[in-house]
C-alpha cells in the first residue's frame, strides 16, 4: 500500500510535465488552430537555453526560469511571423507538416553539435535533498515541480478564460474580421499567443533540465505522449489538457508499478478507447 502512494505521487510529478506541455499545445491549437509539432523541440530548446545561460553567461536556475522562456518565446514568435502565419486558413495538415519539419531541423542541429547523450544540469542548491514522507523519499525538487507547474497551469487558464485579454483572444479566433473592426491588432495578438505557448514549453524544459539530461531528443521522446494527452483531453480545451495531463501521469505511474512493460503504451491504449467512445475528447466541444 505504501508503495502505491509513492507511485501515485511519482505519477503526479510526471503529470505536471505532461500538463505544462499539453497546456502550451492546447493554447496554440485553441487560439491559432495550429497543430504545433515543434513543441517538443522548443521544450528541448528551453532546457538547452538554461544550460547555456548557466555555463556561458553564469546565470543560474532561478533567473533562467524567466529568461529562457522569454528567449525561446521570441524565437517562437519569429517562427510564427516568418513561416507559420502564411499557413493561416489552410488545412491543419500544412501546419503539422511545417512544424514537424522545423522540429526535425532544430533537433538535427542540436544533435550535430551536442551528440545524443546530453549534458548535465545540476539541481539548484536551495532545492537539493529530500524529505522522508514515511511512505517514500520525496526529492524536494520534484515537489517544487508539481507545485510550480500547478500554479502556472491555473494562471494560464485564468488568463485565457477569465480576463479581458483572454476574451479578446478567444473572440479573435472565432471571428478575426469582426475583432479587427474593434481596433484590435489580431495578427500581433496571434503572434504573442504563439510566443506564450512556446514559452510554456520552454518553461517545462527548464524545469526538467535538472531531472532529465539536457538532450537534443528529450522533446522528441515526450511529444507523442503529450499529443495523446491533448487528444484525450479534447483538442484546444485548456482545463481539459491540464486535468488530463496530471491524470495520465498518475495512470502511467500505476502501470509502471503493476505492469512496467506496458508503461509506454498505456497512454495510447487510453487514447484509442477515448476516441472510440467520445471522438472529441473528454472535455472537447463537438464543432
Amino acid at each position, binding site marked *: 500500500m505504501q508503495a502505491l502512494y509513492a*507511485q501515485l505521487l511519482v*505519477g503526479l510529478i*510526471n503529470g505536471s510535465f505532461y500538463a505544462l506541455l499539453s497546456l502550451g499545445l492546447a493554447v496554440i491549437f485553441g487560439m491559432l488552430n495550429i497543430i504545433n509539432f515543434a513543441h517538443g523541440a522548443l521544450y528541448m530548446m528551453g532546457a538547452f537555453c538554461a544550460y547555456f545561460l548557466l555555463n556561458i553567461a553564469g546565470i543560474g536556475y532561478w533567473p533562467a526560469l524567466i529568461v529562457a522562456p522569454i528567449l525561446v518565446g521570441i524565437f517562437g514568435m519569429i517562427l510564427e511571423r516568418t513561416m507559420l502565419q502564411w499557413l493561416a486558413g489552410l488545412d491543419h495538415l500544412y501546419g503539422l507538416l511545417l512544424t514537424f519539419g522545423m522540429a526535425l531541423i532544430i533537433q538535427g542541429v542540436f544533435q550535430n553539435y551536442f*551528440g545524443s547523450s546530453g549534458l*548535465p544540469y*545540476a539541481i539548484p542548491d536551495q532545492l537539493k535533498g529530500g524529505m522522508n514522507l514515511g511512505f517514500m523519499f520525496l526529492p524536494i525538487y520534484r515537489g517544487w515541480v508539481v507545485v510550480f507547474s500547478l500554479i502556472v497551469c491555473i494562471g494560464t487558464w485564468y488568463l485565457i478564460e477569465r480576463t479581458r485579454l483572454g476574451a479578446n483572444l478567444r473572440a479573435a479566433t472565432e471571428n478575426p474580421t469582426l475583432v479587427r473592426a474593434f481596433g484590435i491588432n489580431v495578427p500581433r495578438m496571434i503572434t504573442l499567443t504563439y510566443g506564450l505557448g512556446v514559452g510554456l514549453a520552454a518553461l517545462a524544459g527548464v524545469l526538467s533540465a535538472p531531472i*532529465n539530461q539536457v538532450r537534443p531528443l528529450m522533446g522528441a521522446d*515526450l511529444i507523442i505522449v503529450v499529443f495523446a494527452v491533448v487528444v484525450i483531453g479534447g483538442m484546444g480545451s485548456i482545463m481539459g489538457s491540464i486535468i488530463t495531463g496530471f491524470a495520465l501521469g498518475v495512470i502511467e505511474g500505476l502501470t*509502471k508499478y503493476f505492469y512496467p512493460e506496458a508503461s509506454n503504451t498505456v497512454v495510447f491504449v487510453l487514447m484509442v478507447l477515448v476516441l472510440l467512445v467520445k471522438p472529441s475528447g473528454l472535455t472537447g466541444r463537438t464543432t
Partner: protein
Amino acid sequence: MKTSFLASLLLSTALGLSAPGLAAAQDKIVKIGALSDQSGLYSDLGGPGSTLAAQMAVEDSGLGAKGWKIEVISGDHQNKPDVGTAIARQWFDVDKVDIIVDVPNSGVALAVNNVVKEKNGVYINSGAATSDLTNAQCSPNTVHWTYDTYMLAHSTGQALVKSGGDTWFFLTADYAFGAALERDTTAVILANGGKVVGSVKHPLNTSDFSSFLLQAQSSKAKVIGLANAGGDTTNSIKQAAEFGIVGGGQKLAALLLFITDVKAIGLDIAQGLNFTETFYWDLNDQTRAFSKKFAARMKNGAPPTMVQAGVYAGLTHYFKALEALGGNPHDGVKVVEKMKSIPTDDPLFGKGEIEPNGRTIHSAYLFEVKKPSESKAPWDFYRLVGTVPGDQAFTPLSESKCALLKK
C-alpha cells in the same frame, strides 16, 4: 531490333561469366558498411564516431597504397531489427558490401547476424553486448570484439558480490540486451552465494525512472543492478541520486557504462561508480595518440568510446587477414577463418586472439569514476582499479554452447 537486343544480351552474359574468372586473380575491392544507431540513444557510443573509426582504420592500414580500393558507407538502423536487416540485405544484394561493422543494440545485432551468415559476408560486431553472438547463436561469419554480457557480469558483477553486495535488484532494459545481461549477472551472483530479490523491466529509451527506482529502493536489496545502457543508464543514475538511493546505503551497479555516459551524468554524480570497459583513451601512449587524432575529427571533440575503438581494432585485424589472403575478399567464412588464424595485436586493445566461436579475447579493466577534484583535463574521468586478463574475462570455451566448437 530484336536480334541486336538478343546479341547484346548474349554478349553481356558471356562477359559476365568470364568476369569472375578475371577478377579472382586481382580483385582488391572492399566495401565496409558501418551499421549503427546514428541518431538515437546509442549514437554517441557508436554512430558517426564508429564510421569515423572505420575510416581511420582504412587510412592507417596502408592498403590503399598496395592497390586495394576500400570504401566505407554507413547506415542508421534506428534500433529496429527490421530496419537493420533491411539495410544489411540491401548492402549485400545491391551495394556489394563485404563486411558489416559496429551494430550496437543486441536485438538488431542478433538479427543482422543471421543475414550476414546467409549472405556469407563478414560481421565484426563491436557495439552489441549479448554474449549469444558467440554462444548459442554463433556464426562462422561473425567476430565479436570489445565486450559482452558475460564479461561485464564476471568483472563488475563479481567484484561487487565479493565486496559484500550479496542481494540484488535489477533495472533491466526490456529487450535482448537487458535480458542477456540480467541472465549472465544473475548466474554470477548465484555462483558467488548472492541472491536476486527482484527485477523490473523498463521499455527501451525511458526518460523517467522514478517509479522503477522506488521499487528498487523498497526491495531493500544491497545492490541495484542497472542492466541497461546509454541514455537509460545515465537517467537511472542521475535520478537514483535524486531519490537518495546511494545515500540510503544501497549501491548502484552500472553494469555497462561508456565514457560518453559519464560525461553526460557529470562527475558530481558519477564519482565513485565502479564499472568495466575494455578501452580507455588514457591507458597508454598508443591509446592516447589514437584518441587525440580521433577527437580532433569528432564534431564535439569526444575521445573514442570502447565501441568505436573496437571498430578500429576489428577492422585493423580484418585488413591483416585481407593482406594475408592477397585478394578476393568476398568469401566471408574464408576471411573470418583467416582472421582467427592470426593472433590479434593492435594499438588499442593490445595482444590477443579470436577464439573458434568468434569471441575476441583481450584484457578488461575495472575503473572507478574520479572525483571532480581529481579530474585534471576534459574527459579525464577514470581511475584504473584492476585488470582482468583476457582468458579470465570472457566465456571459457568449455562453457560455450557454440555449434562451431563441436566439429
